């Protein structure tokens, strides 16, 4: 399955990805400013199947997964005005909505505290227009970074981000020491950091 996924991704050229993200931003703007249902439905068509796949990973049956997809997409509609293009891609923003929902709804017995990162940024942290443009390139860079991560690190990322497993659960599942899980995560992040050229 993993091989199939990677082949599909490689078929997206860097250029396609930039165009796709620009299209998402445009749709988000129409949803936020004009309450445009057609624009929203296009976002639904792209993101709902991925969200369902994401939601089905942990303890969720198809019915619950669809409830969560619905809830996530309604949050996209409601919070469209809060999306800040300078802070990250639409895909990343929708991922955080899905992640928060999963923490809330599937693991609500002991929720992980979250902060709204943007709430704490100084006004000067907002990137000017040219940085927004640069940000559009970032998605293809993240994609590139992920493509260059060795399989044993990629596996840890999937178990963490998609399967929603804690580091200790991953260590047990793979029968490796906790320290190895952490060092693979550090290596994967280090790789991403080098490609994105961000500060330590």
């Amino acid at each position, binding site marked *: 399955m993993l091989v199939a996924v990677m082949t599909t991704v490689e078929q997206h050229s860097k250029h396609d990805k930039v165009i796709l993200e620009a299209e998402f931003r445009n749709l988000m703007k129409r949803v936020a400013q004009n309450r445009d249902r057609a624009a929203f439905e296009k976002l639904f068509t792209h993101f*709902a199947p*991925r969200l369902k796949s994401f939601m089905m990973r942990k303890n969720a049956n198809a019915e619950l997964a669809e409830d969560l997809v*619905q809830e996530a997409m309604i949050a996209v509609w409601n919070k469209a005005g809060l999306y800040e293009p300078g802070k*990250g891609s639409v*895909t990343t923003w929708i991922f955080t909505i899905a992640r928060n929902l999963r923490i809330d709804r599937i693991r609500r017995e002991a929720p992980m*505290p979250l902060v709204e*990162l943007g709430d704490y940024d100084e006004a000067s942290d907002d990137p000017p227009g040219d940085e927004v443009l640069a940000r559009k390139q970032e998605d293809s860079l993240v994609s590139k970074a992920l493509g260059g991560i060795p399989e044993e690190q990629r596996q840890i990322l999937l178990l*963490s981000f998609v399967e929603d497993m804690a580091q200790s659960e991953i260590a047990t599942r793979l029968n490796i020491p906790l320290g190895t899980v*952490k060092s693979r995560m550090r290596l994967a992040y280090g790789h991403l950091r080098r490609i994105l050229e961000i500060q330590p």
Partner: protein
Amino acid sequence: MTPAHHLDHSTILAYAAGTLDESIGLVVASHLAWCPQCRAAVRAAEALGGELMEQLPDAAVSDGCRARTMAMLDGATLHRFPAPPVADAAVPGPLARLLPVANLDELPWKKKAPGVAIYDVKLSPTAKGQVKLLRIGPGRAVPEHGHGGEEVTLILSGAYRDHMGRFGRGDVADLDEDIEHKPVAEAGGDCICLVAIERPTRFKSFAARLMQPLVGI
């Protein structure tokens, strides 16, 4: 505020993935409220999460799900930007929500020894770890100890020093369990730390070791 000591990158990834226990998550979220550099790191890690989600194989969504979602749009309301929290408040927002009072001085501190007091932060009953506020008097040393589990400490006020350097307000010590250290609070004022420890059984022994020379447990 620009802290000098930051979160471990594996902690940044686990936070972005949403898989931290409530205990460690609380200290991490509190540090993030004060640290622009770690917020940027979390954003990058979240972008990785977005890409991983984007690459998942599609799961067919039923027509019913689409129809129900579209039908709910009319009743939905657009959220506006909420008033931003105070970024440089004495107590970071994620912690403030769990405290009964706004001012740390007014907490019902439990004195464990002269110059040392503890307050237990109340988490969900099913949280795996514990979070404690630790108030250490000026110049006092915490006995050398290892970490029998995951431990993350955020300095809320004052400062301490150990062999890794000086830890002041906003700094975080995100330590592996095999690291031993002997923090000494700086002279001049109390050092108040927010400490999360994920393995409660081991924490008891850590707490015992921590307090033994002070209270003679």
